[in-house]
Structure formats: structure tokens, C-alpha cells
């Protein structure tokens, strides 16, 4: 830190660097390479290998080819049941997470007083553990003593038995998950703040109403951030495990028995590692396909800055 501007100026003849050994950059990134092979690539390939075996946690393992995959899709109703529950959850969670995150970001971008405090408050739940979230919500959701149903009573709603009623438990998990909307909100807020003010000015002067400005300027300009948020929301929806394990334990009547929880049970309750590994690859495949599909479709609705500039030119 003893570099002064003088030396910088004096030596800015560039290119006169001492040659660096070829090995040096590799030494710097070697931790990541080792870690990637040992804790990501290795395990992933190993898990693919395992998925072709009948692999109990102790005892003989037998190569069975694609049997695990065939069994789960043709003979295991729980596989489809759990997959459907996860899909239902994703269908509820992803749009709501994006919508709530977007509305909160709009609110924070409206130039209200105390915006900094609001932003902090909205983000607070995102910094606590899923376990803490579970204990907080299990008490809020309590059928007879829960404060949620008490408050609902004020507006004349007879609150359901949130965690005990098969038709409500999944919804209860969706609401609890939405409490952690903070990071999506931050990303969308960042996107909002990057939109050039002139766009709104131009539209306002041409007499475009506020709702139309949101629809035709904000949403398309937010495209890349929305895309990113949708993909991360899909991934987190499919990985949902902590809430299922702790808040509802998969119940009632298996109504929240998520796909990830079925994988977990196969591995660590029934010790059928090969079957669980095969299931986790199915999940990876689904998440990958969905992400790719979202990205592919995005060319229709994501507008990168260059294009929008052109459009603005057209309008004016």
C-alpha cells in the first residue's frame, strides 16, 4: 500500500513487467480446481455411477443398469406423487416470489421517505436460518393458539388448520417461503435502478399513463434480472427440503412430501443410495431443462439495453 501516484505515473510505460512463470496463475486458482474436483465434479460423476447400482449403504452392491430409473418411473407411485407435489409448489412459489419481489422493489424505487429502513426490514427474514423460520411459523400457524388465525378472525375469515389440513399445508409452506423474498427483491431493485430515467421522462411527456409505463418500459427493461430471478427461484423451489422436513414432516397425509424429501428418505432412512442417486439426477435434469427452457423463451421477452435504445428512437 505504499504505491504513490508519482511512481504510477513514472512507470506507466506499460508492458515492462517481469515475466511471470506459467505455473503461477495455476497455483492461484488451484484451490478451486482441487475443490471442484473433490467436492463437486467427483461427487456428481460418482452419483451418476451409483445410480446404475443397487447400492445399499452397507453390504453387496449390484450393477443393475437402468433398473433404478425404470423402477421409479413405472413401479413407484410415490415418485410421481412427490414430483407432482414439488411441481405444484414451484407453480405457486415461483410466480408469487417474483411478483412479491417485484412489487416490493417497485415500492422501494418509488422515492418514499425511509426507503433505506424499509429495504432493511424487507430483507431481515432472509438472513435467518430455515430452522428459525420453521419454529417461528409453526407457532404462527398453530390452529387454535396461532396468532395468524386470530388476526384472520378480525376480517371474518375462519382460518384453516394450516399445517394439519392436507389441502392447506402446501400453501402454508409457500407463504413461509415467501417471507424470504428479500434476495429476489434486491436483485429486481438493482435492475429497476439501472433503468435510464430518460425512458420514463420521454414516455411521461408523450402522455403514457403510469400503468403502461410499468408494463411497457419497466418489465421489458427488467428482463435480464427477471430471468435470473426466475431461474434461481425454480432451483430453490425444487430443492425445498428444510421446511418439508421440519414444518410438516411431509404430512399431513403426505401432502407436502416433496421430491427432495423422498430423495432424502431413500438415502438416509431406507439406505437405498443407488435409487436416491438416480432420483437426484432426475431432479438435476428437470431443473436444467427448465432453466434452459426459460432462457430459450427469454429471447421473446427479455430486452437487452441495446435493443431498447433502438425502440426508444423509434418512438420519439
Amino acid at each position, binding site marked *: *500500500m505504499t*504505491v504513490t501516484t508519482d*511512481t*504510477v505515473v513514472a*512507470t506507466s510505460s506499460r508492458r*515492462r*513487467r517481469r515475466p511471470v512463470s506459467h505455473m503461477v*496463475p495455476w*497455483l*492461484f*486458482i488451484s*484451490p*478451486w*480446481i482441487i*475443490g*471442484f474436483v473433490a*467436492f*463437486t465434479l467427483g461427487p*456428481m460423476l*460418482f*452419483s451418476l455411477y*451409483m445410480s446404475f447400482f443397487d447400492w445399499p449403504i452397507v453390504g453387496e452392491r449390484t450393477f443393475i443398469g437402468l433398473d433404478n430409473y425404470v423402477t421409479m418411473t413405472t413401479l413407484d407411485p410415490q415418485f410421481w406423487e412427490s414430483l407432482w407435489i414439488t411441481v405444484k409448489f414451484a407453480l405457486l412459489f415461483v410466480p408469487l416470489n417474483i411478483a412479491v419481489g417485484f412489487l416490493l422493489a417497485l*415500492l422501494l424505487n418509488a422515492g*418514499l421517505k*425511509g426507503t433505506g429502513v*424499509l429495504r*432493511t*426490514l424487507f*430483507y*431481515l427474514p432472509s438472513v*435467518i*436460518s430455515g430452522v*428459525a423460520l*420453521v*419454529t417461528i411459523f409453526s*407457532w404462527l400457524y398453530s390452529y*387454535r*393458539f396461532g*396468532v395468524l388465525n*386470530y388476526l384472520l378472525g378480525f376480517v371474518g375469515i375462519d382460518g384453516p388448520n394450516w399445517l394439519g389440513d392436507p389441502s392447506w399445508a402446501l400453501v402454508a409452506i409457500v407463504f413461509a417461503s415467501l*417471507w424470504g423474498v428479500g434476495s429476489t427483491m*434486491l436483485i429486481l431493485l*438493482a435492475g429497476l*435502478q*439501472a433503468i435510464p430515467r430518460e425512458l420514463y421522462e420521454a414516455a411521461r411527456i408523450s402522455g403514457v399513463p403510469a400503468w403502461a409505463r410499468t408494463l411497457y418500459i419497466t418489465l421489458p427493461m427488467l428482463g435480464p434480472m427477471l430471468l435470473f430471478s426466475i*431461474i434461481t427461484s425454480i432451483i430453490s423451489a*425444487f430443492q425445498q*427440503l*428444510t421446511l418439508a*422436513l421440519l414444518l410438516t414432516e411431509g404430512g399431513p397425509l403426505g401432502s407436502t412430501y416433496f421430491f*427432495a424429501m423422498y*430423495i*432424502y428418505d431413500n*438415502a*438416509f432412512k431406507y439406505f437405498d*443410495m443407488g435409487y436416491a442417486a438416480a432420483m*437426484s439426477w432426475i*431432479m*438435476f435434469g428437470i*431443473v436444467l431443462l427448465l432453466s434452459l427452457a426459460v432462457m430459450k423463451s427469454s429471447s421473446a421477452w427479455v430486452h437487452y439495453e441495446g435493443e431498447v435504445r433502438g425502440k426508444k428512437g423509434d418512438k420519439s
Partner: protein
Amino acid sequence: MTRPLLYGAAIFMAALFVAPFVWTLLTAVKTEAELYTFPPSFLPETWRWENFHTAWTKLPFTTFLTNSTIVVVLSTVGQLFSSSLVAFGFARFRFPGRDVLFVVVLASMMIPWDVKMIPLYMQFNFLGWINTLKPLIVPAWFGEAFFIFLLRQYIMSVPMEIDEAARMDGANSWQLYWRIHLPLMLPALVLVGTFQFMNAWNDYLGPLIFLNDQSKYTLTLGLSMFKGLHGQDFISIAAITVVLCLPPLVLFFFAQRYIMDSALGSSVKG
């Protein structure tokens, strides 16, 4: 839309996000009798702060806290060191395959943990690491894609002239990293440290899968076990929950400027 309406919406939303915390804190200091009154009483009649002490002694929470602290401290030190080292390598050197490798770094962020969970368990089992804190600490010493990305972006914003001047003064690559860039990226390191602290402190699935002896439990695992054993003891559960939430919340208050700026900054660039 009118301003008052917006303020109304803001206050309503803020209440939704904060009320559960307040409610948990209020529950933690109530008496057993007050807990099951309906309609619920909002402010406790008597504030029983000793509830925290009572809850804390119902299970060996001091042991759990010690374990959590070991994991958090060691994994954070490792993460700061390894991620900054790798980020420096990607930001300041040109070498064949660099850009492809960096795409791999970014892509690895998309891999669901579920895919790795089972083979990692087998691997740590093979190494004899199950029921030790090692699986929760050692991987953090090899860098994390998201942090590498953040730090690399930060290093790239530092003018190249600084490197050239240091090299002229005879600094080698290590000195350039250790004496020049590490101090310069302090704000980004605060951010990475905060995230790593929260990840390690809040982690539940890792401890759940890799630990099976109560003497090795972390605080999250301890709380979930406590909930399993004393499901009706809501006062104690609430008290431990408050303790579990406190460190990340306090840390967040101190580091929030960096967190908000990074979320805003990195995306504007990206």
C-alpha cells in the same frame, strides 16, 4: 398512484416482515399460562427474561454453540483466503483455458446440492469424517463459486497501473496479492465474510447429514432436535430461536451497506 396509498402499503408490508420476529421475542418471555390464552395476549404481563436461561439449560446448548462457533470461524477464514486467492488468479493473469474455466465456475453455481449430497456423504464416510465438523469446514477452504465471482469483479475494478507499479518495485505475484490486493478488497471481503458466516451459522442440512452424535451438533441441529423432543414447549423453542437469529441479524446491521451495494453494483455491471 397516490403517495399516502404507497406509504400505507409500505408500512403494511414492513409489519408483515417484522411482526413474526417481534411475536417470537414476545413469546419467549411469556409465562406458560399466558401462552395458551385465547385471544392471544400481545404484550406479556410479566417479562420473564429468565426464560432464556431456562431454555438454554434444557439441552447442552453451550456445546452446540461451541460447535457452531468453530464451524463458522474456521470456514469463514478458509473462505476468505481461498476465494480471494482464486479470484486474484482469474482477475490478474492470462493463461490458456482461463475463460472456459471461469464459465465452469459460474455454471457450478447452478448445481443443486441434492445431487452432491449423497456421494458427499459416502465420500466423507470413506474418509472417516462423518460425525466430525470437518465436512462443514474443509470444503470452505477451496473457494465458493459465488464468492470467487464477486471478488473477481471487485479486483477487476482496480486499475492495472497499481499492479504495474508494484511489479516495478519488485513485488512478486504473491506479494501483489497479499500486500496490495487483499487490503484493497476489504469491502468485498466484509461481504464474503458476512455471507459465509450466515451460510455456516444457518446451515441445517449439512449438520443433519454429516453429524449424528449430540456432542457434535451445531445450534440449528440442536434447536430442531429440541423441537422434536419438546414440541409443546413453545416458550423455550422461541427463546432458542431468538438466540439463533441474533448473530446474523446483528451482523447484517453492520454489514448491510456492503450487501445492498454489492447487489446493486454487481448487477449494474453484469
